[in-house]
């Protein structure tokens, strides 16, 4: 069986890595990683705006964003993907590639989840930081820009990393709208071989595990470091400090 798996990797590694590129669209693992990185990069600034809107005193800012966040968290990602699958072409009037559809969905979805992370980071700083910044003469925006956000985002680096992990896992759902990612490539391999589905999907699981585990590992190490630094205990052995556990989003 391990023999079969090695043979599959030997024969199909290029397809699994970059899909049919350059004879077709870029796909495989490369596409999975590009899709995840792009959606986090786009969701990040949006999530900061969402978080600030949710913490704002103005109900006009707070309510719509809160509703959007609750809606996004209460509906399965698969449903959202199907929505954008027919809404995005309808709104843009153009033939939109499935990659863009998936990217749009992921940005909305991850913005909602990340905004909760950012909000928690801001709330965790405590009101004293804001009071002090205001006392020093900063306006609300200046205080946010120079005092609150730099600290909150620094503390949130591990959670952002684990959101990245969950985004990588979420990209697999692009399978339903034929996004040419790693899962899609593996099912192509499976369709060509027909006789070794277990081996093919085990390889797929191992690849995802290797990537996500590595990132989770770094997120946990970073979290320990940051917890110690925030506590002013950089020289204390890690074992003496127990950080709050990273709860990565499911899927």
């Amino acid at each position, binding site marked *: 069986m391990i023999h079969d798996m090695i043979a599959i990797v030997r024969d199909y590694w290029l397809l699994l890595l970059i899909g049919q590129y350059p004879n077709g669209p870029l796909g495989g693992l490369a596409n999975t990683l590009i899709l995840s990185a792009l959606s986090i990069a786009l969701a990040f600034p949006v999530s900061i705006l969402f978080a600030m809107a949710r913490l704002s005193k103005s109900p006009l800012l707070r309510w719509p964003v809160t509703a959007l966040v609750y*809606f996004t968290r*209460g*509906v*399965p*990602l*698969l*449903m959202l993907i*199907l*929505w954008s699958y*027919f809404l995005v072409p309808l709104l843009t009037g153009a033939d939109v590639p499935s990659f863009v559809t998936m990217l749009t969905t992921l940005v909305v979805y991850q913005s909602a989840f990340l905004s909760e992370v950012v909000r928690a980071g801001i709330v965790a700083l405590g009101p004293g930081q804001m009071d002090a910044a205001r006392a020093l003469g900063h306006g609300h925006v200046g205080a946010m820009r120079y005092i609150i956000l730099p600290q909150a985002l620094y503390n949130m680096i591990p959670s952002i990393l684990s959101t990245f*992990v969950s985004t*990588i*896992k*979420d990209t*697999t*759902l692009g*399978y*339903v709208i034929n996004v040419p990612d790693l*899962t899609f490539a593996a*099912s192509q391999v*499976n369709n060509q071989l027909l006789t070794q*589905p*277990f*081996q*093919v*999907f*085990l390889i*797929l*699981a191992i690849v*995802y*595990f290797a990537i*996500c*585990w590595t990132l*989770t590992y770094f997120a946990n190490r970073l979290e320990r470091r940051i917890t110690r630094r925030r506590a002013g205990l950089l020289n204390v052995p890690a074992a003496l400090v127990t950080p709050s*556990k990273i*709860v*990565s989003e*499911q*899927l």
Partner: protein
Amino acid sequence: MSGFDLSAILGNPEYVAMLLHGIEMTFIIFAGSWSLAMALAVLLLSLRLSPFRFGDPIVAAYVSYHRNVPTLVQLMLWYFGIFTLMPSGLGEWLAIHNAEAIFAVIGLGLCQAAYFSEDLRSGVRSVGPGQMEAARALGHGYVSAMRFVIMPQGVRNALPPLINHSVSLFKNSSLAVIIGASELTHAVKEIENLSFRTFEIYLIGTVLYLFFSLVIMSIGAYLSMRADPARSARA
């Protein structure tokens, strides 16, 4: 396609029957995988708390696998992979008895057990060590101290993440459509194919999911309130 018209779907008994069947299957998958996950999570937790030396790394590996491999890939591995490796008698039996739903329950349940067991573990860990010492000093044995002193407090601490993860499990039950189970998302896609009323049927499907997610959340909120009225009032 003419204007927005919900009655094109809700007025059609055939579509309503399909939706109801989808809801029923979604709940069967949710209830089945939730029970499997909870039973396994308790088992994993006791393995971790036991003096058995290899318990810890075994559970850690289990949790790590299920948290770092996408649920969809786990489902595919079960349905497309492990299914084909099964002895033919068992395979046939499964094929007759709605194999898609059974593998959805297995895949989602095993995966969810990892999250539930972590929730329970951090709940139990947050019960101070003094509680165990006090219980032992009062004459409880290990098992009865666990049963009467530690676990009730641990489960209460673990309730909020358990509820969150139960909602996630409910939403993830939609993944079963990819291995061909005829649950709610499947019904939505079928009705879309038959009626071409894309907007209306997705709206109905989305509202149903949102409604049931909110119901599960409120049941959870009620349970936490009953478990600890004082703390919920503070929160």
